[in-house]
């Protein structure tokens, strides 16, 4: 379809410059970074040619932060300071973490999200993830030879708002401009669909290291429409390792292992699982710290037996997703397998049996998510490919509000296409009530205590009235990243309160800028100069874009509206001349606000022209 071109800030100066953007798969076990080079998506390897970066961070003796294979190699020796599978704890409080004893970490129940005590101090999961992302960022910048315009970061589709927000915060902390948070199965569908010209209803079965997602998508003429999604944000390949680990303990009659031995046996368990993908049996040997030797033979048959319930557990969300999409297993044209754990032959067999067809495994299950994210990043950064395509994603879990009696009232149901907004009116229940507490929840259950609490805020200043007279309109808005913001407004008085849902688990903007400043080696002057430079680049971009828009669609404005815009442009020019960051930003803000109505009219015109084009096309 023909899209009207709108100039982008900074693009006018060098229109043919390729803007460096990457897709990042921040995985539980491994992470990857990919980009689009000369039209095709490719994973960027490290200096040894390895694509994967183990998601392992070690806080070493001299204050060094070691990430990846080198950290992984030390995990048995230094288990307390070597963090693996941190994604499992993203956006979670201590109370959320099942079986704390299973991990060798020393958890600190900080207000908000859980922290891990290391020799470098207490580290939040956001900080640990940021260390992984920082490594991928420098890998990309070294390999591409320049600073990144931005990144698309993937998250499990079943991640709730708190987990998404924590991921976005981690990326910002790593100095990345987040173009979009993209659901992992959707990313896989992009990579798969664009490669295969797929049309019809597809299921993406994504069993990663620590999370399980299933998405049902309708693919047609360049539109990727997610119909439903479901999953389990704490189920993955790690759990298969753990089943083997428990089997080892049972067979060897081991009790009360220390952190080192626990980590060693978990590593042996993972190796055994991988070996069983190719072999009928495998030998597990380990020398424990007390000198005891473990030597066991694990067969495929035993492994299948001890892990069968885990596979069954994945088929429940599959059934749920099909129900929500209102289709049956027979309506599915193809099942795309994603995630390293789908390499296990008995997983493929069970999925094949459920759908009555052989699952599609022709793309590397470890890389497909990063490749899809890279393709999306390339488009979002403004390097338009030849094909136009559109992604319509959904929220995985219903968003609600606490009402009287500890019950949850749903405001936005799960599987709503995003962006989405919904408003609901509430009233006071006591005479003279002047404040109202808004408790934001996510989940499907009726009781507040069974849902995830995202945030609480209070609307104050409601004029005293009799019970039931006030009209408080609460609006939930979910953006294209799947992130929620909430506004409450008393209709008769106009009193308003709003919150960008930075749940009890997130970091505040202040926290992030403090951490960013802490981590910057720049002196103060450098930062100030950089800020002015950035402000001017933004301002010039805005002027260029507005001028181009006026040239194209100036007829949409009345004469006085036009002169207001011209004044705002002139004002910004003079602000730039002052070379003062604050003035430039203020004038940019003014021009930006002045253009809002104009931008709205242009977009409406685009819609109408596109619809008309469609009708002519249909004749």
């Amino acid at each position, binding site marked *: 379809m023909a899209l009207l071109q709108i100039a982008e800030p900074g693009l006018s100066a060098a229109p043919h410059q390729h803007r460096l953007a990457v897709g990042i798969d921040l995985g539980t076990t491994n992470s990857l970074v990919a980009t689009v080079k000369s039209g095709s998506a490719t994973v960027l390897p490290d200096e040894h040619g390895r694509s994967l970066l183990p998601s392992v961070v070690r806080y070493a003796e001299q204050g060094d932060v070691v990430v990846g294979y080198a950290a992984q190699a030390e995990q048995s020796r230094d288990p307390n300071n070597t963090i693996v599978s941190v994604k499992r704890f993203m956006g979670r409080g201590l109370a959320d973490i099942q079986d704390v004893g299973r991990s060798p970490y020393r958890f600190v129940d900080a207000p908000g999200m859980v922290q891990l005590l290391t020799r470098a101090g207490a580290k939040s999961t956001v900080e640990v993830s940021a260390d992984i992302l920082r490594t991928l960022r420098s890998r990309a910048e070294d390999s591409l030879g320049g600073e990144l315009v931005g990144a698309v970061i993937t998250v499990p589709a079943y991640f709730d708002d708190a987990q998404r927000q924590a991921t976005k915060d981690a990326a910002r902390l790593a100095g990345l401009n987040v173009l979009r948070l993209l659901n992992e199965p959707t990313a896989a569908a992009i990579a798969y669909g664009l490669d295969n010209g797929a049309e019809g209803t597809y299921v993406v079965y994504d069993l990663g290291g620590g999370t399980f997602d299933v998405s049902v998508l309708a693919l047609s003429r360049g539109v990727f429409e997610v119909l439903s999604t479901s999953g389990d944000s704490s189920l993955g390949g790690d759990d298969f390792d753990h089943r083997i680990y428990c089997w080892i303990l049972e067979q060897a009659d081991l009790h009360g292992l220390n952190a080192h031995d626990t980590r060693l046996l978990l590593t042996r368990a993972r190796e055994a699982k991988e070996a069983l993908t190719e072999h009928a049996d495998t030998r597990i040997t380990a020398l424990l710290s007390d000198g005891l030797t473990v030597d066991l033979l694990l067969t495929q048959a035993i492994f299948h037996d001890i892990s069968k319930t885990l596979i069954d557990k994945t088929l429940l969300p599959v059934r749920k997703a099909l129900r929500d999409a209102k289709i049956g297993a027979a309506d599915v044209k193809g099942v795309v397998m994603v995630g390293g754990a789908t390499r296990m032959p008995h997983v493929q067999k069970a999925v094949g049996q459920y759908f009555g067809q052989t699952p599609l495994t022709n793309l590397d299950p470890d890389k497909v998510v990063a490749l899809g994210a890279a393709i999306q990043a390339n488009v979002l950064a403004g390097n338009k490919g030849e094909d136009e395509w559109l992604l319509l994603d959904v929220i995985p879990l219903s968003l609600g509000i606490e009402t009287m009696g500890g019950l949850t009232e749903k405001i936005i149901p799960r599987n709503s*296409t995003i962006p989405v907004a919904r408003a609901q009116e509430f009233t006071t229940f006591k005479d003279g009530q002047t404040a109202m507490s808004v408790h934001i929840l996510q989940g499907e259950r009726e009781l507040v205590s069974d849902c995830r609490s995202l945030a609480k805020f209070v609307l104050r200043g409601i004029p005293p009235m009799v019970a039931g007279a006030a009209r408080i309109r609460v609006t939930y808005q979910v953006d294209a990243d799947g992130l929620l913001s909430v506004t409450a407004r008393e209709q008769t008085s106009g009193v308003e309160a709003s919150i960008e849902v930075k749940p009890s688990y997130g970091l505040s903007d202040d926290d992030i800028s403090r951490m960013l400043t802490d981590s910057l080696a720049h002196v103060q002057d450098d930062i100030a100069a950089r800020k002015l430079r950035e402000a001017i680049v933004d301002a010039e971009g805005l002027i260029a874009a507005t001028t181009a828009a006026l040239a194209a669609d100036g007829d949409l404005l009345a004469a006085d509206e036009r002169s207001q815009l011209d004044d705002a442009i002139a004002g910004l020019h003079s602000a730039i001349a002052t070379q003062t960051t604050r003035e430039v930003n203020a004038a940019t803000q003014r021009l930006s606000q002045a253009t809002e109505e104009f931008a709205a009219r242009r*977009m409406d015109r685009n819609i109408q022209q596109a619809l008309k084009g469609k009708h002519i096309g249909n004749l």
Partner: protein
Amino acid sequence: MSTDFTQDHFALFNLPRRFAIDTAQLDSAWRTAAAEVHPDRYVSGQDAEKRVALMRATRVNEAYQTLKSPVARARYLLQLAGVDTAEETNTSMPAAFLMAQMEWREAIADARAAANVDQLEALSQQLRGDVKGLEAELGSALDEQADHAAAALAVRKLRFLEKLDQEIGDAIEALLY
């Protein structure tokens, strides 16, 4: 010439304002409009454009969700005609309908007690037949007879059936998960 965004959902998608609509045309118009205003198109655009795109995309999705669901579409048509469907307040229903509701509830409770998922699926199928019948009634009440009272009653009935379907769904989920 600019488009007034206070226009109704039908005008937004260039569809006739009536109950019977071409769903393929609705799908296609939604995708076309969504492609124009999706925030993905404005990631590197100006802030004003980003804000507007979020609002417009939200609006386009809301219009689509409203028109896609027959009961929401009927409720919306009645609202445009100034008729309140009074789903929360008007609880007087024909006796025969209420009787049928009780029978449905019993059938669901029995299947649930027997942990019979297949039976629940069958009930869900059967319910879909009833829903189709009421939707046909809505079509003729709204598009042919302009009988708003009959249409509002059909919307209230469909609301009951929606709740039944939800109960069946909850029962299936409770048994499966």
